[in-house]
């Protein structure tokens, strides 16, 4: 469903400003749609009451998968399917020799499992249109944005709060989500 939406956004030029603004806005009934910053402004997510990511769990489960995969691969090939006499060693679940590959595959699956989940979850994908309100939001500007269609958004209140905390510009814009 692609349609134009109307957004209200304020532009800051200092991380502390947007941080304070976020705290103030969150204290009201208004919901911040999102903030866009050029770098990770620590505390902003807390200020906006964004939930904690569960990627760590994914990473753990992926790692477990990788480990199982590696162990079963090695066991199946070297013990079950075609055991061979290699240097007189018995063909069995040889823990020391299986460790390196198990470890490597665990890491590989963890990294890629988590990475791909991250891309999917964060919608960082080819074909995703970037949401750019300000060209310098990836440079030195900090943008706080509100969905004007959401119920209960008090435009004057948030505009005031943002200006109070140092937003040098507050604008309204109508666009297909993101593109300018």
């Amino acid at each position, binding site marked *: *469903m692609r349609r134009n939406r109307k957004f209200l956004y304020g532009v800051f030029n200092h991380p502390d400003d947007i941080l304070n603004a976020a705290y103030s806005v969150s204290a009201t009934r208004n919901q911040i749609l999102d903030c866009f910053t050029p770098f990770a402004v620590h505390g902003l997510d807390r200020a906006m009451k964004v*939930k904690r990511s569960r990627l760590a769990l994914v990473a753990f489960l992926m790692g477990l998968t990788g480990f199982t995969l590696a162990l079963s691969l090695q066991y*199946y090939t070297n013990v079950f399917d075609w055991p061979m006499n290699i240097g007189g060693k018995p063909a069995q679940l040889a823990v020391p020799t299986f460790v390196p590959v198990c470890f490597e595959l665990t890491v590989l699956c963890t990294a890629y499992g988590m990475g791909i989940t991250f891309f999917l979850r964060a919608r960082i994908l*080819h074909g995703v249109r970037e949401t750019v309100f300000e060209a310098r939001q990836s440079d030195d500007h900090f943008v706080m944005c509100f969905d004007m269609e959401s119920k209960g958004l008090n435009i004057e209140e948030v505009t005031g709060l943002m200006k109070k905390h140092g937003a040098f510009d507050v604008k309204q814009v109508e666009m297909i989500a993101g593109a300018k």
Partner: protein
Amino acid sequence: MNIYNILALILLLIIIFLLRIKRHLTKAINEKFPDNLEPDWIVDTFQPWYFHLNKIIGLISVTLLGLILLGGYGFWYSFKIGNQQGYQPDQPIKFSHQQHAGLYKMDCRYCHSVAEKSKNASIPSPGTCMNCHRYVQATAKYNGSISPEIKKIYEATGWDPDSNKYLYAPKDLKWVRIHNLPDLAYFNHSQHVKVGKVQCQTCHGQIQTMKVVQQFSTLQMGWCIDCHRTSNVNVEGNKYYEEIHKRLKKGDKWTEEQNGGTECGKCHY
């Protein structure tokens, strides 16, 4: 149980696993954030490549997909490389195994006599054919004249049917080899035919029904190995195997594999 089943099983398990993770996560999110702040509008920003960004990505994606498919196909196809199963070339003489081995019930080893002594089964010399075809000329079929195929034997041996003598110089008879193993594999007929008492048909198929011989088995290593894993060593009546069996103290079932039949050095040296 073959490997692909196991791989499929593992993949299935992973999928189930992932689905469970997803459900779990969704549930967790919904529980913790009943008033979900995750804005759904961002979904709208996802516009698949084909009507948004540019054609390059499309091109790249199609190419990648194509490459993956091609690679997969190539991988599966690679199993067939060198596999000439069903190879059925034309031979210089239209010799019918169906007639000789099937109809007349001739023993294979009458012509392929060295199969019990040598690694080759060998193609019989035309001289062997002459043992019968000096007299058998199939004239009835050809209105009194000698069968053109039998004539080719006469040419190859230099036989003159009129004077019943070898008058001419023999000519080369170029049979087309059907069963080809790569040079790196050693195979010995006598081990299988004489010692192992394997029927010719086990590997060569129902040769007595073939008018024109074709390759029955894949002759690939996997095919050899499968047989060696399942067939038992024929211990009885062979003093060599009896001695080794006694030494190895294996149970009643003593497969070729347990006798070292899947070791590399059995065929590759």
